[in-house]
């Protein structure tokens, strides 16, 4: 507005200078005309016309003043203020709407973040559970397998002891029988056991 006003003023200044120069030329030509013999002077200087002009000027101006101030100005200012109000209203509405939209967006983002957190938590839980059950299962099967191994080992040891025991009694019977058959001497079982023990010790 300020700049607009200044530029208007500079235009006005330039215009005034131009019109002054221009008016000077025109008035020179006017005075040249007036110098001609028989020519009347300027009609504007004819005092006879003044009362009529002043009279009609007053009437015209007062009438126009009333028309402008009582009819035109209120009407225009009404339209202008109506428009201003309407624009302000629209701006207000736009602001509330944008605020609402902002709120909705914030809510949406919050919900989104919550959902993401929940999903993260669920994933972590599932992972943890899986890892735990895996470890348990492993430990269980480990324990089972080692139990089975132990069992098997003890069974093998028992079978072996039994087998060794059988061998001893067979060997004692066979050795006793063989000695009595060969030399007809009954050897005491304790004696045979001693020999068997010594033999088995030497063999093993």
């Amino acid at each position, binding site marked *: 507005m300020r700049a607009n006003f200044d530029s208007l003023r500079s235009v006005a200044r330039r215009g005034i200078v131009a019109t002054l120069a221009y008016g000077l030329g025109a008035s020179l030509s006017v005075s040249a005309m*007036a110098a001609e013999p028989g020519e009347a002077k300027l009609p*504007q200087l004819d005092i006879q*016309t003044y009362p009529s002009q002043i009279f009609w000027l007053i009437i015209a101006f007062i009438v126009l003043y009333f028309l402008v101030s009582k009819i035109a100005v209120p009407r225009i200012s009404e339209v202008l203020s109506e428009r201003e109000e309407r624009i302000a209203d629209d701006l207000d509405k736009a602001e509330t709407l944008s605020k609402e939209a902002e709120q909705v967006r914030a809510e949406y983002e919050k919900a989104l973040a919550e959902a993401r957190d929940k999903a993260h938590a669920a994933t972590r839980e599932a992972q943890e559970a899986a890892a735990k059950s895996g470890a348990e299962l492993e430990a269980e099967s480990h324990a089972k397998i080692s139990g089975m191994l132990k069992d098997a080992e003890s069974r093998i040891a028992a079978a072996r002891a039994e087998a060794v025991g059988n061998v001893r009694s067979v060997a004692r019977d066979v050795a006793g029988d063989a000695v009595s058959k060969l030399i007809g001497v009954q050897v005491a079982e304790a004696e045979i056991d001693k020999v068997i023990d010594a033999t088995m010790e030497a063999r093993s």
Partner: protein
Amino acid sequence: MASPVEQFKLKPLLPLEVGGLDLSYTTSALWMTITVIGVTAFLTLSMRGGRLVPGRWQSMAEMSYEFIAGMVRETVGNEGRQYFPLVLTLFLFILFGNLMGMIPYAYTFTSQIIVTFAMAFTIFVGVTILGLVKHGTHFFTLFFPSGTPIALAPVLIPIEVISYFVRPVSLSVRLFANMMAGHTMMKVFGGFVVALGIFGVAPMVLIVALTGFEIMVAVLQAYVFAMLTCMYLNDAINLH
């Protein structure tokens, strides 16, 4: 060939005499009437719809309104509000008078010194009374702004007083001389067009340019008149 100032002669249309005074309705009065009708039509017919989104005519009426409202607000301030209709009327009256005077065969009442002087003098008197009523004797500080060295008083006060009392003259002569000079010039060159026959094309071209220039002067002088009125109002209301 008729004198180029012949055009300013008034023709009585309806003779009227009151108490020995000739108050005839003349061409000048006729064009004042047309101006009043034109301004009223311009301001009211264009606003008849009062549309939210203005059309061309409505825009122009609103622009004139806002232009003068802005001028009053910026030069006089808030206290100038009540003088806004007056300044708007002055501006539009002079503007339409000047512009309608550009219509061929129309009469330009603003080319009459008595008309412009009557307006300027009324403004001068009105503004002076306003200043005196509002500020009393304090109004005379207008002639000697505070903060000026007292030694300058003998020089400054006469200058200020003279420039103050010369206001109605400068205000009225500015408008009158511009209008008269422009129309005289056009008439002179118009005479050349007729006198030169085929070579009259050259002044003819000049007249076309002059017409454009004159329309600018018409608007500009209305603006200057309204602007100076605002400044005088400001002096009276705010004392500089």
